[in-house]
């Protein structure tokens, strides 16, 4: 993971998203109008968050299987970055909703579900902080993380489909097929997802290295 090429790709893709997402011709749709460009910044946050939370749950499972504290550090730092992505996703969604739905919070099931998801992972952090013994903290944290992930999936992918919603992408796959994603949007959207996710992974990697260094310093003291 120390190689530089993927970081360069990530930064390049994010810059491409910033420039192309704001400048390239977008389809004219009623009500949405230019706000459709929010898709390049809002939707990738959720993609990135779900990808990183999945990775975090996988690392928690690996921690429980091996007992290696390294994996637990991976899991917690991935959750930290996911929370950042989640908050950004909520914020961008609220800005967008303010212009298209007329209010930043209008009880949309997806909006509610993602807010609940945030609460679950805040609780995870709280739980970890309330345990002092590192092995115990890692083990209990991993168990809660996996359990939380198992309930998050129905929350994000099943419940919103059962109710009607104004959210684009409803009636089918949440996220895709949104407004008959046309070629011009696709050209920015897919790179945006990859770029933001790589940026998230880079952030996480830095935090992981920082926490390894910290624990090494603590050991020497």
């Amino acid at each position, binding site marked *: 993971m120390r190689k530089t090429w993927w970081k360069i790709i990530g930064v390049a893709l994010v810059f491409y998203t910033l420039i192309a997402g704001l400048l390239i011709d977008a389809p004219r749709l009623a009500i949405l109008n230019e706000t459709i460009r929010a898709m390049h910044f809002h939707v990738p946050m959720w993609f990135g968050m779900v990808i990183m939370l999945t990775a975090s749950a996988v690392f928690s499972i690996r921690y*429980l299987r091996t007992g290696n504290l390294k994996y637990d550090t991976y899991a917690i730092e991935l959750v930290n970055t996911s929370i950042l992505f989640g908050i950004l996703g909520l914020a961008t969604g609220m800005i967008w909703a303010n212009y298209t739905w007329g209010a930043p919070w209008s009880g949309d099931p997806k909006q509610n579900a993602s807010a*609940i*998801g945030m*609460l*679950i992972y805040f*609780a995870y952090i*709280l*739980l970890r902080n*309330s*345990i*002092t013994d590192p092995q*115990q903290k890692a*083990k*209990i944290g*991993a*168990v*809660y993380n*996996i*359990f*939380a992930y*198992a*309930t998050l*999936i*129905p*929350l994000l992918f*099943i*419940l919103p489909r*059962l*109710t009607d919603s104004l959210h684009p992408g409803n009636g089918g796959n949440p996220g895709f097929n949104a407004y008959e994603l046309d070629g011009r949007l696709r050209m920015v959207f897919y790179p945006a997802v990859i770029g933001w996710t790589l940026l998230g992974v880079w952030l996480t990697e830095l935090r992981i290295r920082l926490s390894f260094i910290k624990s090494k310093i603590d050991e020497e003291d």
Partner: protein
Amino acid sequence: MIKQVVSIFQKEVKLEWRNKTAFNGILLYLVSTIFICYLSFNLKTGQMEITTWNALFWIIIVFANINGVAKSFLQEGEGRMLYYYTLCKPQVILSGKLIFNILLSVLIALIGFSVYALILGNPVSNYIYFLLTILFASIGFSGVLTLVSGIVSKANNSTALMAVLSFPILLPILLMSVRLSKNAIDGINISLMNDKLFTLISVDAIVITTAYILFPFIWRN
């Protein structure tokens, strides 16, 4: 193995039977909450709007459940846990506790419903589905709360943590049951309810399976 499960279950029932304060405590909690709601809404019987009736009912049930089921591992001392550990498998302990908690939870919900209906009026029209919702919601609640109480018993500041950790995880089940019971109250066509009921059952299945997989890890210390 089944014998062991039965004896754990019997032990829980006996403990509860001899020490009735716990159950009476929940009962009193339930009745006084319902009465407080009745007084604060300042209504005559049967005047409450159905949506409010429904939401209030489930909120009361969730709080009573958290109070009632939470203690399942919190009441066990450190020494007694160690004693169980030498006797049987973690799955056996979980099964015993889970069966007892499901029973307790159903009982809480049924008593809660009868008192609630008596004081605040009873708009339910499809009893079969209403009771099925109560049953499967109780199974889900006790599945989540049993595992979370196992997790919390290993952490320090137990009581506050219990609510914070279990709330967001309970929410998917709670939302499904609120919707289902609203449908049962309105008495809409059964074919429209079956879908939601199956979703609720599958969420229950996810919760209980993950609880069985994860419990051995918090158990082994």
